[in-house]
């Protein structure tokens, strides 16, 4: 039998060699696959870890879904690459002198993917439905200042407001505010998206890929440069790096600094770092136990060296941050009672709270929600222990974490929260007494209510910045939460990709300006 055994092993080896020999053809066919099916461009393959969980834009919160849908749908306003609000389907807008009316002039000649024209009736129907609780649209709260929507003519939409709302134009720019054709339903759009974006749906293979085709009727001055974009599902980020190395994928966005380092290390992939709007934070629930006392919260703030958390958990990839991460309103991370770690001051605060012997705080941590969560939590625990603060970690599966977070069932939470370009959108819902996430934030005050109201009523950028600086100071002085750092979004591209503009929001909006050589 030994000879038989060797022949069997030999057969396996021959199979190996045969298949490996075929690999050269696969390598070349991969570049061949970059040739697009449509004329005048090629296919850009984007590696993603998951396919969209919904194709209905008003309910999309998953990163991958948002990235696909913002290329299919249009919004009244848009963000440019620096997150300034610029015209979208509305060419211009004007706020009345008393700030109670927002008039939007719509772009003419815009059509949906099915060929029907976009007009004010579609805009009114869309906004009315987003405001309707039965639709369960996630952006409903962003229209809380809108009393009614009128469409006086086909090219004009008028929003009657309960009061001034300077954040409204920015709120209209998210894909959750996408303009839909008035006859479309959720069921229909989940099967066949019908938007006004730079691409239309080409083909979808569930769990494997979704391919968008260039929309040649797109209203923008420049049509998409590639004929199609394929979002190819490769569930593991390391496998996406391998697919880029072998030339099968041309663009991907990573969150994990370790994966980004691996990708950049090979020399064939360019990795661009963009500071994120999202921020890593130790949320403190000021309605719970010892954390009701501001001195305990300040003691926690003083006992944490944020740079150490960043260096230990995220390889130093990010920047220490204050509450507001939006570039135009960025807070000074050192404008807080303890700009650096100060254990003596932490001890003073604990003594003032009558807890000189120490306190125990239970913190929930998500396992797997994002790459650095558990490392951050462990570092925080170690640092706080030196200040006699016992951070008891409860590491939870992501579903269990979300459940507890949604129910505000925690003393503290180690979290990565989504930032927004406008600070009112980012924090108004958390830290105003009637904000829809105030239960989770666990903190509000009359001062903050007043400041957020001022922020909404003020239109000048400089004046608003001054107001939100005060908001940030109020949050830090009361240690509502302990803001740690903001990481980077890593956009990896192969050498033949040009024209992509990464955004702090992680958005892939600029796929329309991207070309594949």
């Amino acid at each position, binding site marked *: 039998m030994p000879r038989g055994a060797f022949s069997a*092993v030999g057969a396996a080896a021959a199979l190996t060699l045969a298949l*490996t020999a075929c690999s050269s053809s*696969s390598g070349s066919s991969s570049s061949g*696959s970059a040739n697009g099916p449509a004329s005048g461009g090629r296919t850009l393959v984007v590696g993603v870890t998951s396919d969209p969980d*919904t194709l209905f834009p008003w309910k999309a919160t998953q990163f991958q879904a948002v990235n696909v849908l913002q290329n299919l749908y249009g919004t009244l306003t848009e963000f440019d690459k620096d997150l300034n609000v610029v015209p979208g389907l509305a060419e211009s807008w004007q706020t009345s002198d008393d700030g109670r009316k927002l008039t939007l002039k719509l772009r003419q000649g815009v059509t949906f993917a099915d060929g029907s024209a976009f007009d004010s009736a579609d805009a009114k129907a869309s906004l009315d439905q987003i405001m309707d609780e039965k639709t369960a649209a996630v952006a409903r709260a962003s229209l809380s200042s809108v009393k009614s929507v009128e469409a006086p003519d086909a090219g004009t939409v008028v929003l009657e407001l309960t009061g001034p709302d300077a954040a409204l134009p920015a709120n209209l720019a998210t894909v959750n505010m996408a303009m839909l054709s008035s006859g479309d339903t959720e069921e229909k759009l989940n099967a066949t998206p019908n938007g006004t974006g730079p691409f239309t749906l080409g083909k979808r293979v*569930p769990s494997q890929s979704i391919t968008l085709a260039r929309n040649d009727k797109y209203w923008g001055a420049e049509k998409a440069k590639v004929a199609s974009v394929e979002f190819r599902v490769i569930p593991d980020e*390391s496998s996406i790096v*391998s697919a880029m190395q072998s030339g099968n994928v041309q663009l991907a966005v990573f969150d994990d600094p370790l994966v980004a380092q691996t990708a950049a290390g090979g020399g064939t992939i360019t990795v661009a770092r963009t500071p994120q709007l999202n921020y890593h934070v130790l949320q403190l629930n000021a309605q719970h136990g010892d954390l009701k006392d501001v001195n305990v919260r300040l003691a926690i703030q003083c006992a944490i060296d944020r740079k150490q958390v960043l260096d230990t958990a995220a390889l130093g990839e990010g920047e220490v941050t204050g509450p507001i991460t939006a570039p135009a309103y960025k807070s000074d991370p050192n404008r807080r009672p303890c700009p650096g770690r100060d254990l003596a001051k932490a001890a003073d605060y604990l003594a003032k709270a009558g807890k000189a012997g120490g306190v125990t705080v239970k913190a929930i941590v998500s396992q797997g929600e994002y790459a650095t969560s558990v490392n951050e939590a462990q570092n925080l625990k170690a640092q706080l222990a030196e200040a006699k603060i016992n951070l008891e970690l409860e590491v939870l599966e992501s579903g269990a974490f979300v459940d507890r*977070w*949604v129910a505000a069932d925690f003393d503290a939470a180690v979290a990565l929260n989504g930032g927004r370009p406008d600070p009112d959108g980012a924090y108004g819902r958390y830290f105003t007494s009637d904000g829809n996430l105030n239960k989770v934030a666990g903190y509000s005050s009359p001062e903050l209510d007043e400041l957020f109201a001022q922020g909404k009523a003020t239109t000048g950028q400089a004046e608003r910045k001054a107001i939100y600086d005060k908001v940030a100071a109020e949050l830090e002085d009361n240690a509502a939460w302990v803001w740690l750092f903001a990481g980077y979004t890593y956009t990896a591209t192969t050498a033949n990709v040009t024209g992509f503009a990464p955004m702090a929001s992680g958005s892939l909006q600029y796929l329309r300006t991207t070309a594949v050589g």
Partner: protein
Amino acid sequence: MIVRNPVVRRIVRSVVVRRVAGTLGTLFGVAVLVFVMLRAIPGDQITAGLGTEAAALTPAQRQALELYYGLDQPLVAQFFSWLGNLFTGNLGYSARSQQSVLELTLHALPVTFELAVFSIVLALLIGVPLGMLAASRTSATGNAAGQVVSLAGLSIPAFLLATTLLSVFAASFGFNPNGQGFATLVEDPLLNLQQMFLPALVLGFGIAAPILRTTRTAVLEVRSDDFVRTARAKGVPERRLQVRHVLRNALVPIVTMTGLQFGYLLGGAVVVEQIFSVPGIGRQVLLGIQQKEYAVVQSTVLVIALAFVLVNLLTDVLYRVIDPRVRAS
């Protein structure tokens, strides 16, 4: 074989009835267990879809979403509604994929089946010859090689081997067929075989270890039997002796082990499927769990359980084919 004796026929029929009833009972038990376990996991389809944004829902919005996902029904009604879908044949509906679970499964199951067959073939090609070598008294090298492969197969985690192979092949040779869109055996046989090769090798290597060990033990046991000594004394050539007499008589435990491993593979090799982007049944279950798509998980697990039962049945039939003593009993 036609059974003419009515008594024997009655016995056979009762055995078949018992077997079918046992299978149905097992499947119902699995269905109830999975249903209950899924509901015990924190979260639902709403929080899985919206994440922390679910905290911002008003009670009326939440109610609308519960109605949309059918979560407004009592648990018992949800169970029987799903059971009803099983009998209508569509196995439920996946809102994420906009397809029935039957359609999803009809795409995923053949992929997993192919991967399982490919893996088992590789595992047998590695495990059986090396197992026989390891059992050989004359080949110390073969024995050592068998021990090394067996130890490596059992101790190297699949995710490590998979990631290493993928990275090394992609970075060093530009070989990464799994980076291309998945092609089925019908669509593009050559690309499909390339895409299946590395995942099958990783799985096959892991499975080869228990097959190798089983082969070694079984061969050693058979080799000491009298009939082997007799055959050798009668001058049967060594190669023929090892294959026709020793291996054939050692097949029963090897088939048992192979059947078990094949059954597990049909359950989906989640980690390997994830790393190599193979759209098999394991990934289908994982996505279903992540998205809390109850119908997807429940129906797919039921299909896997059924596959396991069928593989066990097939293994029993194989015993009869390869061992006349079983036929006789």
